[in-house]
């Protein structure tokens, strides 16, 4: 048996109850292996998902569903390095995913 994380989809339901991702530019901080990213990305216009752990980002890229490849970009970078490279008011939604 493989590890099953939140098979009940409680986290996704709680997230989608709070925010409408339709057409949104999203930044996800602490995306890990993309577990949560895949669950909302279909609604978004573009998702930039970052995590400082290389092994996690490699897994995230490997498991990225084909249908999401044009809108999800995974980057192995810490937020403190990512933030200064970006202009103000770039994102509609920023998700801190178990990351603070």
């Amino acid at each position, binding site marked *: 048996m493989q590890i099953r994380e939140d098979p009940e989809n409680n986290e996704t339901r709680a*997230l989608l109850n709070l925010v409408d991702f339709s057409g949104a530019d999203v930044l996800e901080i602490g995306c890990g292996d993309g577990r949560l990213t895949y669950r909302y990305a279909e609604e978004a216009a573009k998702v930039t998902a970052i995590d400082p752990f290389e092994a996690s980002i490699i897994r995230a890229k490997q498991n990225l569903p084909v249908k999401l490849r044009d809108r999800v970009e995974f980057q192995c970078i810490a937020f403190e390095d990512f933030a200064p490279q970006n202009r103000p008011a770039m994102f509609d939604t920023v998700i801190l995913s178990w990351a603070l």
Partner: protein
Amino acid sequence: MVHALEEIWRLLKPQGWLIDIHPVAEFSHIKVFQRGTVLFTIPKPETYWEDVFQAEGAIAQLVERGLFLVERVDEFDYLTYASSVGELRAHRELINAFDNTPKDEARLSQEEELYSQVEAVLHEAGEGAEVAFHERGRVARIKPVVS
């Protein structure tokens, strides 16, 4: 942490949202399930509660400074299932790779004892039993305030 939140405020569009998802401190359990029934449950202390309190404090600080407004908060159960204690422990170690809190001997032996108990219940239950790590998550929708 406060600086990271200030940077998030800068990167957000004025009509945007920060969505913060983090564990509810002092709520985590190891459970043994069999065909949907809970056979056993035991609290599982973690070392990162202090980080959770600091994170909540940082958000409160920025709300107080008028940079953010917490619009809505919700909670949910988050369960991670595995077929063995070893599998679950390996997964938790991967998830907690960020946690540099030193573990003292007493804590390590407490943890070993806890996992032995779980292992015994799992073994006794036999086929169809699985172990789960049960956390409670908190999700908040937070609006940047632009004056």
